[in-house]
């Protein structure tokens, strides 16, 4: 690397390294403001239930409790993660009609200390009418399955939002169509079909989610939060609270691990609402248990695949149906389904593609952004499939991949221009490093 650069090509000291190694760096739970209260969320005890009544009177009378809020204290707006197209707004700050997963948000309390908050949560009485629940997305797609959402608001990015009925719990369907798959299958020597599944996964960042909100007399909000995306958080808060953007100042604290999980709004709106109601700063931190119950996970995934290949190893056609279990709310489901399709159409190169991705509601904890964003699930299915193809063709799996790997400059079947791609080099280098040439003795000897 040229000496003309002072930073590029050189290792530079971590900017906040000294703060982190001496314990000085401020993570969200390290922030303490004068007269600060502590808040927590009351979570549903059922996966699917209608809320008949919430009685907060006993909790409000407990000494030290400063505020209890339920849906009636919120603007009752639905929100969703912003997308360029197909934005879906289905999530309430606090549920006003029914709970949709074990851990859904029913009420929130602010009090002088955590012990008092927890005692107050126990004093809130909620009458539920328990409803049949559905956890398997394939069951949820069948007619007559319990409905997780009756309706939601859908926007196309141009004409605003309109109320839509939800059919068969399908939140959204994403399609990729290219070429002619039937022709591709006809030209194939081998056709393989398979079903692949991948389970959910919790980010488990060592620092749990949390936020501190303070509101001044003019209604200006100062919000400290552990986030990867302060501007997204601010934009989402506008949607869920109906507050003008300029009123919210979001300060990202040191972030104790995120892996995608801290793209999400968690306790921020509740902390703000409680701070507004009490006039005092409010801190809310997820417990580790809440983190597992209520924060988003990697979307569990079911994939039906059909692949056609010529004897010489060239992929001729790919057909796939992905079912992403988005759980109770859409969140990042739309984006994940899109990316899953893009990966399917791009890795490996094929001209004829028919992909359908269904994002399906269930009464499970909900899916969100997680490192890879749909990529690990689909890549697992694709790479497993490539090995099956290689075995069927009795071909070296490295060779099969090199034949079909995309290269820079080409346009994938879904229309994505492959700007740069080192996949072939990577496969070749990996094969060399592990001594593949000497190790590979054919499929029979495995």
């Amino acid at each position, binding site marked *: 690397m040229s000496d003309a650069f002072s930073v590029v090509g050189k*290792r530079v*000291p*971590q900017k*906040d*390294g*000294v*703060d*982190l*190694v*001496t*314990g*000085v*760096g*401020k*993570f969200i*739970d*390290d922030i*303490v403001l004068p007269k600060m209260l502590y808040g927590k969320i009351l979570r549903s005890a059922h996966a699917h239930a209608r809320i008949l009544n919430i009685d907060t009177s006993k909790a409000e009378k407990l000494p030290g409790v400063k505020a209890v809020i339920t849906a009636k204290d919120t603007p009752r707006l639905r929100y969703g993660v912003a997308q360029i197209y197909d934005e879906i707004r289905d999530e309430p700050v606090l549920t006003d009609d029914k709970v949709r997963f074990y851990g859904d948000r029913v009420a929130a309390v602010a009090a002088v200390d955590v012990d008092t908050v927890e005692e107050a949560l126990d004093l809130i009485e909620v009458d539920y009418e328990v409803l049949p629940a559905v956890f398997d997305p394939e069951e949820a797609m069948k007619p007559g399955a319990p409905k997780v959402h009756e309706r939601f608001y859908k926007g196309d990015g141009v004409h605003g939002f309109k109320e839509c009925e939800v059919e068969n719990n399908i939140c959204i369907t994403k399609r990729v169509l290219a070429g002619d798959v039937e022709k591709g299958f006809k030209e194939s020597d081998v056709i393989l079909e398979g079903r692949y599944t991948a389970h959910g996964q919790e980010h*488990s*960042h*060592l*620092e*749990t989610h949390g936020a501190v909100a303070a509101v001044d007399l003019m209604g200006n909000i100062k919000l400290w939060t552990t986030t990867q995306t302060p501007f997204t958080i601010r934009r989402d808060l506008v949607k869920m609270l109906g507050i003008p953007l300029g009123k919210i100042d979001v300060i990202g604290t*040191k*972030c*104790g*691990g*995120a*892996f995608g999980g801290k793209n999400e709004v968690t306790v921020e709106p509740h902390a703000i609402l409680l701070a507004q109601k009490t006039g005092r700063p409010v801190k809310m931190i997820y*417990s*580790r*248990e809440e983190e597992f119950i209520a924060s988003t996970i990697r979307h569990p995934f079911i994939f039906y695949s059909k692949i056609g290949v010529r004897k010489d190893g060239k992929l001729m056609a790919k057909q796939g149906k992905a079912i992403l279990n988005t759980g109770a709310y859409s969140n990042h489901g739309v984006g994940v389904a899109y990316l899953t399709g893009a990966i399917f159409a791009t890795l490996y190169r094929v001209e004829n593609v028919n992909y359908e991705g269904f994002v399906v509601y269930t009464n499970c904890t909900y899916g969100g952004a997680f490192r890879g964003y749909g990529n690990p699930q689909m890549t697992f299915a694709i790479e497993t499939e490539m090995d099956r193809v290689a075995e069927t063709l009795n071909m070296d799996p490295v060779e099969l991949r090199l034949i079909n790997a995309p290269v820079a400059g080409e346009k994938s079947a879904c229309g994505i221009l492959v700007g740069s791609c080192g996949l072939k080099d990577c496969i070749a280098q990996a094969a060399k490093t592990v001594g593949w040439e000497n190790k590979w003795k054919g499929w029979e000897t495995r």
Partner: protein
Amino acid sequence: MKQLISLNVNGEVCDVAVEPNKTLLEVLRNELQMTGTKEGCGGLGQCGACTVIMDGKAVNSCLVLAMDARDKEILTIEGVATGGKLHPIQQAFLDHWAIQCGFCVPGIVLSAKALFDENPHPTEDEIKTAIAGNLCRCTGYAKQKEALLAVAGRQGKEGEK
């Protein structure tokens, strides 16, 4: 009912009123405002982010009642760098880029320090054992191990990266 106790933290004796059911972690963070000690797993002793050194041994401060920490010498991350200089372990963490989010780092530094105080040239296995109770979700531990091996004046095991 709160009780007044004395705690010796980083060589300074401080009087603090504590509820008898509060842990050392809670008292360090909430009463003494020493927030360098972290809570990760929720007081279950599973993540090691709250590690402090008590009478020379690395302990999970979430599993020690503050009342039981009376008459003990407690060292927290705030007391590791002295005389305006980082401890060699801290410096090694910086030199080897062993920090990503940094949330686990105070705990790992203290687990390692307890080891080095007793054994200045530990083997790789001894290092691994010493930090086995500290979860890190970002790094994969490789750089942290490298940093600690450098402090011990050793290279990694042959053939191991």
